[in-house]
């Protein structure tokens, strides 16, 4: 990461905060690459999927992007969020390991099937209220635009935006609370 990348990242984030969706998508892609490298370097043993940390960090960046100080360096801010989410993931895994040891005696015979796409955020999506869930799923899983989603679900574009926003906020809360 050199000075040019940093200033490009700052430019993209500024445009995103001004409401530019395309610049925001580009920013998030670059941030995802940074965080992926960060998480892979730090997760040395199994139990945590680095991509879970990437996704939870991106969601946290999204919910907390107002905590970036305009014209402050972006990379340290992204890494600070990634570090917090990584520690969170370690903390949660510690707890889960304890639960698993307790349950092994009873349920050792039925291992749960786990697919690659079955990530923390995907699981949180499944617990949303139906309206929010279908708005989030239509935009991200099916790749529809806000306008297409509004047409398909018979809602106004504003209502889709609100449902999407509330759905993402609910997912972020659920991840944070575990």
């Amino acid at each position, binding site marked *: 990461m050199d000075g040019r990348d940093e200033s490009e990242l700052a430019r993209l984030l500024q445009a995103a905060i001004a409401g530019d969706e395309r610049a925001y998508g580009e920013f998030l892609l670059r941030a995802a690459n940074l965080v992926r490298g960060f998480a892979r370097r730090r997760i040395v043993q199994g139990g945590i999927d680095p991509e879970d940390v990437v996704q939870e960090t991106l*969601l946290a960046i999204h*919910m907390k992007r107002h*905590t970036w100080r305009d014209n402050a360096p972006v990379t340290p801010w992204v890494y600070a969020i990634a570090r917090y989410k990584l520690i969170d993931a370690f903390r949660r895994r510690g707890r889960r390991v304890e639960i698993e040891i307790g349950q092994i005696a009873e349920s050792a015979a039925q291992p749960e099937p786990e697919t690659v796409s079955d990530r923390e955020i995907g699981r949180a999506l499944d617990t949303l209220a139906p309206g929010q869930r279908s708005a989030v799923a239509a935009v991200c899983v099916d790749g529809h635009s*806000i306008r297409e989603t509004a047409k398909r679900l018979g809602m106004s574009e504003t209502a889709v935006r609100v449902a999407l926003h509330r759905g*993402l906020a609910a997912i972020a809360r659920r991840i944070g609370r575990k």
Partner: protein
Amino acid sequence: MDTNELIRALAADARQQAASISSIWWGAVGLAISLAAAVFFTTLGPRPDIATAAETPRFLFKFVVTITLAASAFGLARTLSRPDESWRKAMPYLAIAPALIVMAVIVELFVLPLDTWSAKLVGTNSMVCLTFIPLMGIGPLTIFLLALRHGATARPALAGAVAGLLAGGIAATFYAAQCMDDSPLFVATWYTIAIAGLALVGAVGAHRFARW
């Protein structure tokens, strides 16, 4: 859900914006001061001899300490609301108010005869102090915990403790206008205990409540 799908959803949500950290904290502190003032004027009110008291250095010095504490805690709480490390630069300012009160205590011990020390320290109002600083501070503290939750602190317990110092500084500033005990010995003892209590509640509260 793969990461590119998530990015698509987040990008589509670009227009939904939250209020800036700076505006949230200024709003929070304005609301907190109004709330503390409302509790102060409906319960205690200023002491009757406030006009003459305002001419004595001991009375005025109480406000220097409490306002310094509140101002330094405000600056620190604001930077602690961001996940990065910039709060470390605001940390030294927090030492100013304790340094002031320590100096004042030393001067007071030189000025006062030995046999009056304990009477000045115990004062006449310590239970009122221990009741009303937390009582006037708890509302502001709740507001500040909400402000911390709106931000993204990487140090929830520390940020909560600082929020408690800020709430305590505001409450103590109002309380100082009522309290008849102006000796730095009294302030250093009882104000500190009351404000530390709020800091502890803030630390525990933010540890549970300001996660993200």
